[in-house]
């Protein structure tokens, strides 16, 4: 893991590279969790939320405030963060589920931004100054704070595996059929006795719960949060981009998306990020547009089309 490209660099440099690679791996796994969580409500239930950063931020703020104000361990705070995010999701669902497709996406985008602006304005959230976690306690397992990256890597790996297993179960269970049915034709699903609101609400609440928990993890990992870092609109967009790029509504999609897009974004940042004019973002965007045009439906859909084309002989 600690190999430098030449294998001849001093140990110190090797160590730094390891830390960087571990960081990239942690971010990839973070996006696997977020991508799978979005996949549940967006990919399976077909509710394209563009406001998921709000749930992420709510999780981060809930656990951090509980730790700073009431000295509640982030292990508990993580669950509380998930619950707060899920509760807000239920409140949002009430008016938003009346809206369909683009209108639902627009409403969630607006709600995400509203939550961010509110957190900027509130005093008790630290406003734009944000909140610093008690870094003087490092290392502390009770406070989920470490100097090394390995414990974080382990936590996010467990979360990524657990969330992927949840999606595998959705895929295998009746719930998967019902959510897909709602996604493809809500009225037709309702006339078969499937209550669309109930299932969409469950998918959104579950998705928000996991996203909130991931927000807590992120706060503990970076040890500093503010509305710009945990609730930016770009975060909501990435949470959609990862599963859509890989193939939303599939188990593998978010995994492929995270492990393709995060290293890609890192690579363009390494190569073009130093110019200070944002050319890396332009390149990143252009590559994504190109790949999306080449494979609508994501990597998984492309693979399925190829396999199908091989299986079905062409009739002249």
């Amino acid at each position, binding site marked *: 893991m600690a190999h430098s490209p030449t294998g001849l660099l001093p140990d110190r440099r090797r160590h730094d590279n390891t830390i960087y690679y571990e960081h990239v791996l942690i971010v990839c796994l973070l996006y696997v969790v977020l991508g799978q969580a979005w996949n549940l409500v967006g990919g399976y239930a077909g509710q394209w939320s563009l406001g998921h950063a709000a749930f992420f931020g709510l999780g981060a703020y809930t656990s951090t405030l509980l730790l700073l104000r009431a000295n509640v361990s982030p292990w508990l705070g993580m669950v509380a963060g998930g619950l707060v995010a899920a509760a807000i999701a239920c409140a949002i669902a009430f008016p938003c589920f009346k809206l369909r497709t683009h209108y639902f996406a627009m409403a969630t985008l607006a709600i995400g931004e509203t939550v961010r602006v509110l957190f900027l304005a509130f005093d008790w959230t630290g406003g734009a100054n944000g909140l610093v976690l008690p870094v003087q306690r490092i290392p502390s397992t009770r406070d989920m704070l470490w100097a090394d990256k390995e414990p974080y890597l382990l936590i996010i790996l467990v979360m990524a595996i657990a969330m992927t297993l949840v999606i595998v179960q959705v895929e295998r269970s009746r719930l998967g059929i019902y959510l897909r049915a709602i996604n493809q034709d809500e009225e037709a699903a309702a006339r*078969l006795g499937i209550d669309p609101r109930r299932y969409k609400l469950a998918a959104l609440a579950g998705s928000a719960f996991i996203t909130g928990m991931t927000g807590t993890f992120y706060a503990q990992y970076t040890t500093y949060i503010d509305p710009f870092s945990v609730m930016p609109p770009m975060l909501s967009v990435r949470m959609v981009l990862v599963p859509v790029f890989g193939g939303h509504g599939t188990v593998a999609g978010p995994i492929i998306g995270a492990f393709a897009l995060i290293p890609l974004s890192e690579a363009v940042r390494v190569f073009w990020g130093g110019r200070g004019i944002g050319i890396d973002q332009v390149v990143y965007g252009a590559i994504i547009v190109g790949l999306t045009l080449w494979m609508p439906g994501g990597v998984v859909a492309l693979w399925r089309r190829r396999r199908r084309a091989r299986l079905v002989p062409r009739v002249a």
Partner: protein
Amino acid sequence: MSLLEVSGVAKHFGGLTALAGVDITVEAGEIVGLIGPNGSGKTTLFHCIAGALAPDAGEIRLSGQSLLGVGPHVVCARGVGRTFQLVRVFPQLSALDNVLAGQSHRAESVAAAFSGASRPEVKRRAVALLDFMGLTDHATTPASELSYGQQRLLELATVLMGEPDLLLLDEPTAGVNPVLVDRLLARLREINRRGTTIVLIEHNMEAVMGLSSRMYALAMGRTIAEGTPEALRSNPTVLESYFGPPRATGRR
């Protein structure tokens, strides 16, 4: 007590009156045809019965229990199954998964749905229904790849999966080739023989008159006639609603 009682049901869309007080009664075990020219309110009536639209006035009762004020999934749970005028299956789900989506959802929690796949006996029933519709070979085919007629049969299978007491069919033979129409009509008779009451909207007069024991004619949102297929065939009010008033020359 009748299975379905619709009394004085009215529905307006802005200035447009779709239903102006419709009364129909359906007894258990019947096949009732619903005819009328385009725009006479037949489909709107189905929407109202199935809970997709809330009527502005009137009452709809199933076995004496009001169906007003509840959503389509509740109406389904009470025993009403319906098909749409334009076939509506889940295009990306396999034929089998389409039918499985139609299994009974009474008292099924989200957690229960998440906990596992369909029970073996439910799956067997779904396979049997596909077989009944002659779709066994297409169980794993995505619904979008079936022909329109096959999709009609599939939609019927998904609705039957919920074991409805009352089946509302909106133009079941529209767009279906003649061979499949025969299969479809045979299946409908069989379904009825097994105890399901059917109300169908149909423009294929031969089909609807051959199938129905009793018929209602609608025009301009009102019930204008009721009776046996033979009686309605020669009812001047019904003919007039389709073809306009008789000309002075006496020629039609």
